[in-house]
């Protein structure tokens, strides 16, 4: 199946006032009306999945996803308990949560599913789901906000989710439950006296909303650190929801945005913002932080000897076919400086002044180690690998074989490349190519294939002249 997409995105406020007491304050009732409008937009969108990233559910062991198909309980806010209780009973897509969890792991993230009776679903998620999905018509998933996560971890979390949406053909709505400025009054106030805590907070909130109205979501994501410093109480290390929402929208800057409401709740900046993927026609990015596909941050704190991944890299021979000595028919060129074949064939064969090379992978001569890591371990469990390191190692091996034949990398005429995961790897492969063979200028064909005989992601077939 293919063709899944994020059909709508929303920023929504977290405090319980919109559910429990909208009538007490004009601003709260406007937020409630905007929430109701958002519910209508979602209902008309044909969406079949709601995905909530909630800033009011902190986690420590990576990210957590609710996977109880029908969580039910009564939510009472820690501060605003006098407004009353919210009974909830939600429709959760447990299967999607489990698949997302697996995608996270394959991208190097810590994450887990949570399915326990009575698990306290956080106020932001309860408010958002109660108002956006009033009849529980559309199944939902909820993900926590990791207290230690920074941009790369949050971005990769979103990419794992987005890819899964595509792969499973879902029509999904991405929702961040969050405040803009999050400073509340630290004293009790009369409902009628509510306003944004300070002029500075208000100015920043309006600046963010102006960006979002122009559909410049990625720019807001890249301003996250500044926003955190300016208008966020330093509860957590960073202002993360915009990183997540932007990555859910392919880090685009040309969405169609509309602010449905912007008001204060007990001083905090609260907005309902609608973002639609239709290109707005505006758009270059003002900033350009790096793209990040897999998370490779510090995670091995429990294992201070050697991680299982490193072990696998150093002994991939346990993890692949038998190795052969190269064959030696007339014109064959073989070298100890290239990895041993996995069948009865030579490294290269010379005909006239042309050299035909057998398919070359990234394995290292002698050790068989795979630079950038193997694509799976000995049990077939997927591992993260670095396509750039693998591609570079392929080119180095090609170079050694050509030198053994009295030629060099500068004489390559034609290359056929094989990638086992075109979507994931083409970009990295192409970058290394551009810096190496791209400068030599051979013709090139790149194919996606299902597998290679060893746990590698890239192989090249080369024709060169002597």
């Amino acid at each position, binding site marked *: 199946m293919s063709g899944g997409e994020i059909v709508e995105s929303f920023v929504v406020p977290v405090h319980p006032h919109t559910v429990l007491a909208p009538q007490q304050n004009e601003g709260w009732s406007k937020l409630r009306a905007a929430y109701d409008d958002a519910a209508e937009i979602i209902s008309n969108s044909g969406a079949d999945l709601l995905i909530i990233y909630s800033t009011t559910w902190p986690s420590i062991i990576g990210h957590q996803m609710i996977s109880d198909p029908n969580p039910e309980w009564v939510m009472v806010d820690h501060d605003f308990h*006098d407004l009353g209780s919210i009974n909830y009973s939600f429709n959760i897509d447990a299967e999607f949560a489990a698949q997302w969890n697996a995608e996270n792991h394959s991208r190097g993230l810590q994450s887990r599913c949570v399915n*326990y009776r009575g698990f306290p679903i956080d106020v932001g998620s309860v408010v958002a789901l109660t108002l956006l999905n009033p009849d529980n018509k559309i199944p939902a998933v909820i993900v926590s906000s990791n207290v230690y996560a920074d941009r790369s971890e949050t971005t990769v979390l979103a990419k794992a989710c987005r890819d899964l949406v595509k792969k499973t053909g879902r029509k999904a709505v991405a929702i961040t439950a969050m405040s803009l400025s999050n400073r509340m009054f*630290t004293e009790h106030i009369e409902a009628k006296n509510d306003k944004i805590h300070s002029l500075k907070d208000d100015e920043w909130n309006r600046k963010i909303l102006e960006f979002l109205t122009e559909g410049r979501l990625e720019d807001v994501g890249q301003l996250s650190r500044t926003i955190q410093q300016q208008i966020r109480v330093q509860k957590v290390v960073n202002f993360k929801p915009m990183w997540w929402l932007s990555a859910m929208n392919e880090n685009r800057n040309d969405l169609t945005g509309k602010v449905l409401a912007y008001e204060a709740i007990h001083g905090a900046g609260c907005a309902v913002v609608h973002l639609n993927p239709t290109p707005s026609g505006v758009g270059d990015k003002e900033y350009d932080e790096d793209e990040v596909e897999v998370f490779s941050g*510090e995670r091995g704190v429990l294992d201070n000897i050697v991680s299982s991944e490193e072990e696998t890299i150093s002994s991939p021979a346990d993890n692949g076919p038998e190795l052969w000595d190269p064959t030696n028919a007339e014109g064959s060129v073989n070298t100890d400086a290239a990895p041993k074949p996995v069948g009865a064939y030579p490294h290269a064969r010379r005909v006239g002044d042309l050299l035909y090379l057998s398919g070359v992978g990234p394995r290292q001569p002698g050790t068989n180690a795979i630079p950038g890591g193997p694509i799976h371990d000995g049990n077939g469990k997927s591992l993260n690998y670095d396509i750039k390191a693998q591609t570079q190692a392929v080119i180095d091996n090609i170079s050694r074989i050509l030198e053994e034949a009295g030629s060099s990398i500068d004489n390559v005429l034609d290359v056929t490349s094989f990638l086992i995961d075109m979507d994931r790897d083409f970009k990295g492969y192409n970058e290394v190519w551009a810096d190496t063979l791209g400068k030599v200028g051979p013709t090139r064909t790149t194919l996606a294939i299902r597998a290679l005989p060893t746990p590698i992601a890239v192989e090249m077939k080369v024709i060169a002249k002597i």
Partner: protein
Amino acid sequence: MAKGEIVAGCLAPHPPHIVYAENPPQNEPVAEGGWEQLRWGYERLRESLKDVEYDAIVVLSPHWQTYIGTHFLGLDNFQSLSVDPIFPNLFRYHYDLNVDVELAKQIHDKAHDAGLTVKMMTNPDFRVDYGTITTGHMFRPEWDKPLVVISSNRSRDYYSVEVMQEMMMELGRVTREAILDSGKKVVVLASNSLSHRHFTTESKIPEDMSKEHITSHAMHLWDMRMIDYMKSGQCQRLIDEMPEFTEQAIAETDGGAFTWLLSTLEVPDYPAILHGYGTIIGTGNAIVEWPVYQHKGE
């Protein structure tokens, strides 16, 4: 009416792991033990206080986080299931907890008169936080004494450790006054860890003690420094260094419980009893008693 008194004050941390490791009937998950240093520490604390009489326990936990002042549980009884939002695999505890609402209200009123923002919590659906429950269970598993449960005002997040300390010193002072006026004998508990940097991974068996250690040497040094001050009766230095400690060790003293505790005890200058120290998922935890009952009239 006889004058009330604080009979003891304790630093009594609350990682849910230690309740999990004890396997009490109230908790759903089952463990093969673990974190014994801390659980033995709690045993020694309970033993130390077994002949000391008291009427109520006053506890401040950083996991009832309030941004609008300090709140107090305000109904006689709370019963429900507490599931830790961060470690739900370890802590799903069926609690039944009685509150000394009268004493809570007395502290509330005094705090109000002193200009602090306060509120009584009277929503019967409210779920008591797992920090309070863990400390309550480990301190007195019988659950036969009423509690006063005080929320953690996040003034540290809104302002600074210094402002937080000022407010918690004041809250501690009025807590003490209210207790003395109440005629009751009370134990006060600060429910918090010391250094508070967690691992972000969990071992397959959470109670696998071969994986448990402090997250970094710097955290260890900070914890030992603070414990030395406690053992040698230098609580003013604890207060003085709290901002640095809280920031550098990412300490859970940010919730104000520890400062509040020291203030209720009038910043003691006598040695505390260290009952135990251990790490939990990388964070540093000490169980410490200030035996006020031994220092009457000093």
